[in-house]
C-alpha cells in the first residue's frame, strides 16, 4: 500500500515531504521509546509516536521507515520538520490516539 492511501483513514495532516507520499507502507510500529523502535521497527513501516523532538527523524531515517505519524494531536517541533525535510522523512500528524490510529492502519493493511 502507498503512504498516500493511508492519509484519509488516519485523518492525517501531512507536515512535510508531500512529494514522498508514494512510498510503500507494509507495516506499523507503535512506541515512544527510541531504542525499542531501533530494535523492533521494520523497514517500510509507519511509526506512530507521541515524541515530537528532532531525534525521531534520525531513527526513522536509519531504519528506512516510511513515515512518522505523531498521534493524539501532538505537534512536532519546528526543528523536527526541518530535519525531516533534510532527511526526506514524511511527518504526519493526527488527532487520533495511538491505539485508534494503529487499529485503522491494521485494518487497512490487512484489508
Amino acid at each position, binding site marked *: 500500500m502507498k503512504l498516500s492511501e493511508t492519509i484519509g483513514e488516519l485523518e492525517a495532516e501531512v507536515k512535510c515531504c508531500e512529494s514522498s507520499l508514494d512510498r510503500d507502507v507494509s507495516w506499523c510500529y507503535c512506541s515512544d521509546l*527510541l*531504542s525499542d523502535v*531501533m*530494535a523492533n521497527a521494520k523497514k517500510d513501516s509507519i511509526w506512530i509516536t507521541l*515524541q515530537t*523532538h528532532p*531525534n525521531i527523524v534520525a531513527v526513522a531515517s*536509519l531504519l528506512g521507515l516510511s513515515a512518522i505519524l505523531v498521534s493524539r494531536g501532538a505537534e512536532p517541533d519546528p526543528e523536527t520538520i526541518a530535519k525531516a525535510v533534510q532527511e526526506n522523512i514524511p511527518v504526519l500528524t493526527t488527532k487520533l490516539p495511538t491505539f485508534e490510529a494503529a487499529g485503522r492502519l491494521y485494518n487497512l493493511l490487512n484489508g
Partner: protein
Amino acid sequence: MEKGKKPVSKDIKHEYPIRGMDFVAAGEASSNIKHTLQLIGFAPAIIRRAAIAAYESEMNIVIHATEGTLKTTISPERIEIIAADTGPGIPDIELAMREGYSTAPDHIREMGFGAGMGLPNIKNVSDEFTLDSTFGKGTTLKVVIYNQ
C-alpha cells in the same frame, strides 16, 4: 607481492566527533556511517545491524558523556565501530548491560531515551562486543559485525 612494496590496506577508516547533550546533531554520525555502507553495497540486513550499533553508541555518548568519537574501520569482511568518550565512565558494567537498567535523568527519559535498552541492543546486533570503562574517566566500546 613484489619486492619492496608494502601491502596496501583497503580498509576504509572514518572518524566522527560526537558532542555530549547535542540532541540536534545526534544521529548524524550514524547516518553518515549508514550511507557509507550503502555506497559500498553491504546487504540491507548487515547495514541495519551496523546502523543500530552506531546509533545506540552515538546516543550513549550524547546522553552520558561530555564528548567522544565514533571510529569506523570498514573492509569487505567486517565493520568495526569504536565508540570512545571522556565522561563519567560506568562503575558496574554488568549492571549497565542489564536490560531496563539506565542512569539517564528524567528529562532524557521523557524524550524516549534511557529505557535501558541501548547496550543490550548493541550486543544483540554484534558479532564481537567489548566494553571497557574507567569510572570518572570514560568509556570505550568496540563492536565488530562480520559481513556474512
